[in-house]
Structure formats: C-alpha cells, structure tokens
C-alpha cells in the first residue's frame, strides 16, 4: 500500500500505519475541538466556533516500532446532535470522552456517554475520560485575562485584591470536579483517565499515546485488512471508515510528520 513516500521515519518505511478510528464525545463547550486542534496542529483558538455536525481530522503517532494514524471524528456536543453520534462511534476503536473540570454537569454527561458506548459501541473500544480546562484551575496565580494571556502580575494582584474580586475570579475558575472523584469513576469503569489543558497543551499528547498503547494494534491490523477486502463495494449507508481508508491516501501528501509521541 504505502511504500515510497512514507515519511514516518527510516525504521517505519516498510510499514504501513495502523489506522485507529477515534471519536470525541462530551458536553457542549468542554473543549473537544480544541483538544483535537492541540493534538493535530498544536494550536489553540480561544473562541472556537461550536462544531455543527462533526469534524474530521487525522494525526500520526509513532509508538515503539509502529506508526499509528488516528482518524478522529470530533462530534458536536449539544444534546440536539446526539442522534448523529452513533454514526461516528459505531466502528470506533477508541473514544475520548471529555468533560470540563470547572463544570460538574459535564462529568455527568460524560458518564452517560460511557454508558452508551459500553452498551452500543464496539465491545473492545478503548475509552479515555478526559477532564479538560485544568489551566483554569491549575494555579491561582496564573489566572487569565480576557485576551487569554497569562496574567503576569497576578501574584501581586492576588495580594492586593484578596477578598471581593478574588471571589469573583473564583467563580470563574473554581474546580467543580475533583481529580480523585473522576479518577475513581474511571478506574471502576475501566477507563483511561487524564486531565488536560487544550490551551497550554498539558496532558494532551499523553491521552493519545496511552490510547495507542492500550489498543490491540495487531488485531486491528489483521481485521482491517479483512474489512477492506470485503468492504470495497460495501456502501450500506453507514459510516465505515475502512471504506474510505484505502491505502492510497496513506502514501500521499498527508504524511507531513507525526506527532511527538
């Protein structure tokens, strides 16, 4: 399939990437698109448009001697778009379920996604629970101003402001989901667990690396070969990435370097 142009590295030159279909789920405005944007382009956009429908992105990762290509479906978070989600998670091998650490209700929504996936999705799906926006609560001193820049005078300000305004600031940055609570839930439900900041990049790559480690790559490799052979003319109206994932586009111009993981 992809041989000549594979830029993934000298050791990987004779190897085709393992394609991992990954879906992002979670409440609206928790930062799903931002998380992907950070992972794929290492960018952050403060006021990202809400996703309408779904977005598709890809990114390659190297894990030991394998190249993994994440095919990421970033779904719309609003409840209204819920009915579209099965189309995107149906064949997914991995799911990142995102919540906002400053918003307790978003963890509840995340839990309901976990339940739905455990009921409806691929039984071997690897699920990562991810609490995003930790930059907002990480360090009181690093409060952010309206422009999204780190407030460098924060340390002095904090002492001067103290009570009243500090409270106002608290309102915006109070953590509502303790790490232990989410982590315990993840453990009992058999999920990977991370806390991330799409804004400063903290923990983002790790989410995808750990997913890559946990996925049975050999199994995907063998099963996808079969699926591709059988699914060449299969357009049963479902989203089946394997159909679209033919070998040609692996060797093409999309090989612009993998991520650091």
């Amino acid at each position, binding site marked *: 399939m992809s041989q000549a142009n594979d830029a993934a590295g000298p050791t990987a030159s004779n190897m085709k990437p393992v394609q991992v279909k990954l879906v992002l789920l979670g409440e*609206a*405005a928790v930062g799903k698109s931002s998380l992907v944007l950070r992972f794929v382009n290492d960018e952050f*956009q*403060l*006021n*990202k*448009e*809400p996703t*309408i*429908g*779904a*977005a*598709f992105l*890809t990114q390659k990762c190297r894990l030991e001697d394998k190249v993994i290509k994440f095919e990421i479906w970033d779904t*719309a978070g*609003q409840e*209204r*778009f819920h*009915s*579209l989600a099965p*189309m995107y998670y149906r064949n997914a091998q991995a799911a990142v379920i995102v919540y906002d650490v400053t918003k307790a209700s978003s963890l509840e929504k995340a839990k309901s996604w976990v339940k739905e996936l455990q009921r409806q999705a691929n039984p071997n799906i690897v699920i990562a629970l991810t609490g995003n926006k930790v930059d907002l609560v990480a360090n009181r001193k690093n409060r952010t101003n*309206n*422009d999204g820049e780190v407030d460098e005078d924060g340390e002095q300000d904090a002492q001067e402001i103290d009570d009243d305004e500090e409270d106002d600031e608290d309102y915006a940055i109070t953590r509502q989901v303790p790490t232990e609570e989410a982590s315990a839930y993840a453990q009992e439900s058999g999920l990977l667990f991370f806390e991330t900041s799409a804004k400063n990049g903290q923990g983002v790559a790790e989410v995808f690396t750990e997913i890559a480690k946990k996925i049975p790559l050999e199994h995907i490799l063998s099963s996808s070969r079969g699926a591709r052979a059988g699914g060449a003319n299969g*357009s049963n*109206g479902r*989203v*089946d*990435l394997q*159909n*679209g*994932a*033919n070998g*040609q*586009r692996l060797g*093409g*111009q*999309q090989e612009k370097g993998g991520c650091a993981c």
Partner: protein
Amino acid sequence: MNDVNLMDEPLTSEQRASVVVPRTPVTPSAFGFTSNFFGGGAARSQPTPPPPSSSQPQQVPLPATPVQATPSTPVAPTPPPKTNDNRSRSTSISAFASSIGAFARGFSSQSQPPVPPMPTRTPSQISQRTSNAPTPSTFVAFGQQQQQQQQQDPRNSLANRSMTSARASTISNATNDSNMDMLLARLEAQNELLAQESKRRATTESDMDRALNHAKEEAAPGDDVDWDYWGALMHDYNGVVKRNPKQLATMIQRGVPSALRGLIWQLLAKSKDSQLESTFAELLKSTSSHEKQITRDMARTFPNHEYFSTEGGVGQEALFNVAKAYSLYDPEVGYCQGISFIVGPLLLNMPEEEAFCMLVRMMQTYEMRGHYTPDMEKLQLRLYQFEQLMEETVPMVFKHLRNQGIRSTMYASQWFMTVFAYKFPLELVFRVYDILFVEGADALLRFAIALLKMNHDRILSLDFEVLIEFLKHGLFEPYMNDAGLFIRDAYDVKVTPKKLQQYAQKYQALLQKQQAELAAEENLRESNRQLSSQVRALEGSLHQLNKEHVDLAKELITRKMEMAQLSDRNDVLEQKVSDLTRIVDSQGKEVEEQYKGEIEDVLRKNMEILKKNEQLEDQLAYMESLLVETKMKYAESEIERDSLSRKLSDMRKALGAM
C-alpha cells in the same frame, strides 16, 4: 479582543442626547424613522410603556400612527447640506448606534445588571466597518428625506404593462421556468400575509424613501444599481411584485444593494410585526433555561468578525438577546447551536428586535424550524433531498462521495443549519439570504448543488481526508470574488417543487420502512432479551444441576469406596471367624482327651477317698462305742464319786459334829 475605541468614554443619557441634538434637521428624522419603523423601539425609547402584548397589532396604539398621519411634512422639505459629508454621516451613525444601544439597554435594564459604558466609535471605524459588512448602523443612518418621484418612475409604467401579460413578460435573466414555479408558489403563499401587513407597512413608506435616498448617496458612482426599481419596490412592494414577480426575482438575483438589504429582506419575508417586537421586549425580561449555553456560544459565533468578536460588545449582546428571546418564544426548539449563525447576518443588517421577527419568520414561514427541533426532521429531509439531487445532477460526484464513505451529514448539515454562514464569506452568505427570502429555504439546495457542480473535477480528484476538509472549507473558493456567478450557477440547477415533493415522499416511505425495520429490530431485540434471560435462567439451573450431579457422584464414589472397604473388612473377619471355628473345633477334642485321664484319675482318687472314708467311719463307730463305754464308766465313777463325796461330807459332819 479589546477594542479601545469601543470602550473609551461612557455616554450618559444626556451625552447621548447631545450627540443627537446638533443634528436636528437630520437626526430626529432618522430617529423618527427608526422609532417609527422599528415600532416597539420608539415605545421603549419613550417614557410611555410598550403596548400590552395581549392586544392585537391593529389595536395597539402604535407610536407609528402619528407619523403615519404626517408622513412627509416635518421631514420632507429639508435636504440637509451635510449629507455628503462623510464625517457628519458618521456622527449620525454613531448617534444612531447609541440609540440602538439605548434601546437594547432599555429592554434589558430591568432584568440585567447595570449598563456597561456605551461605546462610541470614531468615524473611520464606522466607515471601515460599514465597508466590511453592513452593521445595524449602516441602514438606519439615513439622514435624508427623499423626493421620491413615484409617478414618473418609468419602471412603474413598465410594470403596469407587464401586469397585463404577467406570465408572458420576458425579462432577460437566468431564471428558468422551474425556478419561477417556486417563486410563484412562494409569492402566492405570502399573499395572505401581504393583506394583513399592508396597512402597517404603509406607515413606513416615507422612511423607506429616506433609506433609499441615503443608500443611493452611499453607493459608489460606478455601481450599476437600478435605484428606480428599488425605490418603487420599497414604496409599493405589493404593487410592484404583483405587476411583475419575475422582475423581482431578477433584481434580487442581481443582488440587493447592501444598504437596503435589511429593509428588503424584511419586505420579502413580511417580517415587520410590531406585536412580535413587543413580545421580544417582554421575552427579554424573562430568564431562559438556555442562557448559559447561549452565553457560552456568543464568543464562539463569528469570532473573527469585528462586530461580534468583542467580549460583551454590542454585537454579542444583540446576538444573545435574539437567541435568548427565541429560546423562550419557541420552547420546543429552545436554543440550538447554529441558530446564532443565522441570526448574525440578520444583525449585521438590522436592529435586534427586527432580527428577532425575521428569525421567527425564517423558522415558521420559511420552514427552517425543522432544522433545529430535537429530531431535526426537516434537516434530515433536506439532506436526503440534497443527496437525491446530487445523484441526479452530479452523478459522478455522488458516486465518488459514496465510494469514499462520505455522507452529506458530514459536511452539508452545517450548510443548511447556518445558511452557509458557518464557514463561508459573509458576502456570499448575504446573497444566499437574498434568494432564500424570495424562494424559501429549498433554495439552499440550489446553492449546495451549484457548489458541487463548480468543484466537480476537484472533488473527483480528492480522497477521503482531503476531500472532507475541502467540502467544508474549500468549495466556495471559486466564488470568492464573484457572488453573482454563485447566484447564476445556483439558478442553473433545476430544482422544482414537484421534484422536491417526490423526494420528500420517497423519504417518507424510506423513513417508514426504517421505522418498521427499527420496530422489528426492537422486537427481535426484545425477544432476544427474553430468550437470553431464559437461557441465562436455564444455564443457571443447569449449573445447579451439574453441581448437584457432581456432588452426588462424589458421594456415590465415597459410598462405593466405603463399601469396598467394608467388604474387605468383612472378608477379613469371615476369614478370622472360620479360622477361629476351626481352632475352636480342634481345641475341643484335645481338651476332652486331655481331661478324660484327669477325670478318671479324679474318679479313682474319689473311690479311694470313699473307701478311706468308709474305714474312717468304721473307726469312728468303734471310737463312738468306746466313747459310750467310757461315758458309762464315767457316769458310774461319777455316781461312785457322789456317794463317796456324800459319805465324805457325812464323815466331815460327823467329824465336825464331833
């Protein structure tokens, strides 16, 4: 982003007034126009309370009525000298922006925290903004009273003539008959509304004139705009449309002058509704359960557009107000992401209460509500119709997309949900709106197909990943600098109501089939569940039985083992018994023989002892006879002794006595 100029000096109400006052010849008319044209706006800007929302529009003592009585007297004769002065116009704009802001704050002040500083803008900013995209300021900044020459309008006579042969009129345009059908259908459907609206609209005619005149002056000299037509249209919309509907379509396709856009849209959509505007004002006082979500999306709607990018700025506030009011007005839809994107282009052309009315009209009359309802049924239908049209008009593209596994939901739902505003440049979006308000939302399909047609070869050359990106962000590129071509291409796409109806029926059938399948699937799933639970129960009892069986088997084995052990022991014991019996038997004889001799000895000894005994008895008899003899002798001696003793005693007595 922090726009310094927007945030500098707060305006008190006096200051605001003072901005207005110097422009007496101009601004009051602009203001009067606004208050008149905006209906509810005037009521809010004055101390009088807004009309009660329960009353019918006709009965409402509209602030517009006095103006209606004197449509031209106060304003008509003054052609202010400053109109061509860019600076003064800007002042008027900012004055007006202030007044809009004041209205907005007027509604919200009851339910919201204190008013933030009112932005003022520099003239350069305003002109820059208006050149980028029309803002609410642009179209309301009409300082001019127009000397409209209705009667001499050559367009009117043309229109009159064409009215006699309305169908036969041949105006060169790109519209084909199928498109006409759609237009006529739309116009017919709206005729009823027209009748109701005509009264109210009459009140605004003079304002329209003013707007038109102003727009004319704003227009660049090179612009090829048929001002006469737009003037006639705005002055007598019903008449002009009735006389020549095709001409309207043609003119709209050529593009609505941007300064008139907000007004024309409202005319096309018949959205003016002072009753609804006061409802809007009322709704703003309530709290919507969607407010948090709406707030979160405000900064995320057109984040790169100057008007909407300022956190808490006028644009975001207006966006918030309209979205919030609509969420209360239509609780089933509430707030759906995408709504803010269709409100944005409205707000760039009209103030928020009018944008709200337009939104309501778009949702209801233009049937876009079904894009945002919980089931999004209209969106699903539209996507289906889109795919069908695609298969028919661009079959290669259709096949290619299908082979690549790309479904229309992946890229086109955002087109329909945001009227292309999600990613497309606003100049194109405005043009789509123009057509949308003439034809209805089905026109969106034209544009969608036109995009695919235009990019036909490119699409075929791309594979999944690049393609899906291209479908979302690249399709409009060929039209970037030629919106007219976009419109013309869209009109080349044959879309008839009949065809769409057929597709809709097909879709219904499909849906029913799917539902039936779903129901069947659900049934199967249910019986599967039951069977599974039975299986589980049976497995459970099987397991139980197995366990019992194993237990029994184990017990059996133990018992058998015990039996075996017992029988072994039995054998051993039997053996012992027989041994013992044998021993006992043999020992008896021995003992008998042993003891026979002894017994004989004993018997013999016994005999001897018996003989000895006889001898001893004989001796004893002899001894006894001896004893008797002795005793006899003893007795005789005793007697003798006695007689002797007596003799002795007698002798002693005799001796004694002696």
